[in-house]
């Protein structure tokens, strides 16, 4: 039996096991989930060992020139293991701080330089008629800009919950904010709808792929 056939069989079995969730939570589904988690974790561990620890930490230690440089990362690496024990978890605080600091720096820098500024610039450029190649482009650009601006403002206005007590004792927001919130509710609903559609299409595509796999398996198994 070839490996492909064996993998196909296991694939079919696991697919059906996952499909059993339609009947509710059951042991077959749980077994399939546990196997996937286990296999994924094992593969990840293997990849980390072979692609990270060995080539980047252990093999350089053989080189005396790199030993001095790699001692510090080696110590920090083992210090992170202390996080497993609450009593000595304080030992890995420095290594954790280095990781958090470096990650935060890269993330913040990229967020500011790669998202915040460019996005603001793009929002401003939407109202720049000079950048538009044609009048229609400018018009549609302006229209998209307005819609984008309104959506942003109205969505942010929806999350403004400050209110005051009216004469009749009821708690109400300002009428202007109430109008903005209602429009912002529409934008939020549209956004959620788009996201739901995207998720549905992704899931539908995945389901089609799985059904196709099963059908093709049986077709090949049957010989159709």
């Amino acid at each position, binding site marked *: 039996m070839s490996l492909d056939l064996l993998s196909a069989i296991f694939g079919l079995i696991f697919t059906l096991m996952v499909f059993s969730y*339609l*009947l*509710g939570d059951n042991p077959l589904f749980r077994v399939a989930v546990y196997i996937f988690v286990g296999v*994924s974790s094992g*593969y*990840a561990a293997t*990849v*980390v060992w072979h*692609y*990270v620890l060995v*080539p980047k930490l252990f093999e350089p230690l053989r080189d005396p020139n790199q030993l001095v440089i790699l001692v510090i990362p080696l110590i920090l690496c083992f210090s992170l293991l202390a996080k497993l024990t609450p009593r000595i978890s304080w030992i890995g605080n420095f290594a954790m701080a280095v990781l958090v600091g*470096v*990650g935060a720096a*890269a*993330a913040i*820098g*990229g*967020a500011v*330089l*790669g*998202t915040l500024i*460019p*996005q603001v*610039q*793009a929002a401003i450029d939407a109202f720049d008629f000079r950048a538009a190649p044609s009048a229609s482009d400018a018009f549609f650009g302006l229209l998209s800009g307005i819609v984008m601006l309104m959506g942003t403002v109205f969505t942010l206005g929806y999350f403004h919950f400050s209110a005051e007590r009216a004469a009749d004792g009821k708690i109400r927001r300002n009428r202007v904010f109430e109008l903005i919130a209602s429009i912002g509710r529409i934008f939020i609903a549209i956004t959620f709808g*788009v*996201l739901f*559609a*995207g*998720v*549905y*299409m*992704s899931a*539908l*595509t*995945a*389901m*089609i*792929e*799985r*059904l*196709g796999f099963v*059908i093709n398996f049986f*077709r090949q198994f049957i010989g159709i």
Partner: protein
Amino acid sequence: MLQIGEKPTKKNTGELEPILPEWLRDVRQQARESAEENAAQEAAQPKVQKNEPPDLLAGLASQAGADDDAIPDWLAGINPATAAKPSESPAREPAPSMAQDDRLSLMGEPEDLSDVREEKDELSEWFSRASEQPGEPFTFEPGESQDDLDLMSNLDASAASLQQPAPPKEEEDLGWLHDLEASAKRSAEPSAPRQDLGSMPDNASSQPSSGGEDLSWLNNLGGISEPSQPFDQPQGKPVPAQPAAPQEDLSWLDNLGRTEPSQPTQPPAAQEDLSWLDNLGGTSELPQPEPARPSSDVPDSSSPILSPRRTAPLSEEAENESLPEWLKSATEEPSMPPLGAGALSWFASHDLDGNQPAATQESSASLSGEMPGLSEETPSPPFGQAQETGGSTPSSESLPASNQDVDALFSMDVPDWLSNPESGVSDVSLQGAEISPAEAGASLAPVELPSWVQAMRPVEAFISEAAAGTEDQAPEREGPLAGLRGVIPLLPIGSSRRPKALSLTLQATDEQQAGAALLEQILAGETAARPLVTSSSVASQNVLRWVLTGLVMVVLGAMIGLRSQSMPVSTALPVEVSAASNAIANIPEGAPVLVVVDYEPALAGELEAVSGPLLDNMVLLRHPNLSFLSTSPNGSALVERLVSNTKINGPAPEGLGYQPGVQYFNLGYLPGGSAGVLAFIQSPQTAIPAADVENFSQYAAVIVLTDHAESGRVWVEQLDARKQSDPALASQPLLMVASAQAGPLLQPYVSSRQVAGMISGLPDAARYESVNNVPPGIARTYWDAFGIGLLLAIILITFGSLWSLFTGIRLRRAGAE
């Protein structure tokens, strides 16, 4: 010993006259003389009813029925009708018992006085006994009035219920009364003073009453404050026959037992002689047990009861000189009003023959009404006044003197039967009336009532409360309080004696109460269980889910199984898809292209279907060297699947014939997240030693395959930040192949031109494949099923929305109705 209910024996006290001491004989002689005078005066004068104090013993008389047996013999002997009864010889009995018997008989209902004559001798016997024997202190307690009444009532009942012939000794005791009776009839015959008055009740001999002659000395007897000798029952001394006394002197005795027609009539003169009896109770301090009178001398059961009491003192003029000390004390003014005034007045109203039953009954009624403090018609006057009123008894003026004499008699020896009643009445009632000699001699003005009298006397508080309602109260008809009214105060429930009800309501303002009510509502709401809104049926959800799933699977399976490709694909490419297509076309031939595989295995089928047309088109057009890199550990495993499913590594002509390590490289896992990406961008070979380029700018294009926006944003941000420092990266296109769920989130980067182009979802892939004439790949294979699936979803969502709308409207209509 006379028992309760037994008929006292009739005694003849006339025989006891010789036995009396000389001084007593003199006294008796004087009494007779005065009695004669008084009788003559009263006969001429109309009867004037004085406002005498109520006879406390009248009630006992009212309880008298037709029973004559309870009448003691000495009292019954007064009645002429009872004179025929044989007089009994004086019997030697214990003094207390005999005294008790006489007392009982005295307190009993008036009986037939036919034996009065025969029992007159009892008085003389009693006197003789009293002089010889020390009297027992007769004590009464104020609080035992009710007990005394009970005693009297019991005695009356017992006396009335029995009409037995008295034992011989009792008949002998009443012999002196018989003599008195006889003397009363003769009226003019002088009689020897009775000398046996001291031993009256216990004389066994029953002698015909000597009438008023023998007892005339009694008229001069005054109230005795404290007896020199306690009243004691004579110890069975034989009572000699008393000589007949003038009828006038003993007229008062004739009326003692007068309750029935058989009672001998009393001449008016006899009534005058009984005036001294009215004063008997007014001088005594404490009531003493009455002397043991001969049972024959006891009048009818309806006769008033002469309870032991302090008697009025004798007049100082005549008696103090000749009277002994023990009798002088009796002459002192009684500390209490004559108790037996009313009773004795009754005696005075009746002659010895008992010819005045009506009067007797009236007097008995009056006497019963004169019981402690209360009467039938009038409010209860003070005890002293009650005794003085005497009810309707005639010759009340003569009674005080008679009462005094009687008190003097009664203050002598107190028989045991009277001091220790057998009916269960507590001795306290009798002991409470113990008169201390010192008290009796010291205080004369304040009347010290015997305890049993005080007990019967209403308390002021009760009087004040009951006084108003006394008139409204009906007299008692039965029981020991028969004939009385207001003895037990009729206080309504919740009278003034009850404490006032205090309001326990909390003083709170309206605002506080409103706040308290609000707090109460809040607390009630917290404890109240909220009704759970449960759906009608939960199973229908699972059924609906199964139905929909089965429908979708069937439809999709059919489309897939049929390999249908009938659904058209739009050729209008979106802007971002067109840009991506342009970017691919601008890649140099054989240039390295970085392909970042950052999606999860769950959506591997979609990404393979979406990325397949792009990769196939790029490989077909530009034959680049593909470098596959992944920021997740599982990405490296997905690279092979991707290359396999996209037919990149498939052999030609079916595949594109790419070989690993030659045309495409699997760089593996890039650790560090954003930092690792930054590091790889800065120096690819530093981050990944197997990288085939030295600078990141050597990559002709960067294609990021992702199913989540985070991974794509990281690459976009890091590349864009690096482009500012490295201008060579500015011309490097960044293409995104995103899942349908991540595409909308990465659209801003496309709009901002940070991403050159993006293919999002299967529709874009299908359009791209259709436009670029890419060989039919996975996207086209999935397109029909994908379209049917979308159409089915749209139909189901629309139908479900309409159904929800319809049911909502129907529920609202039902709720409105």
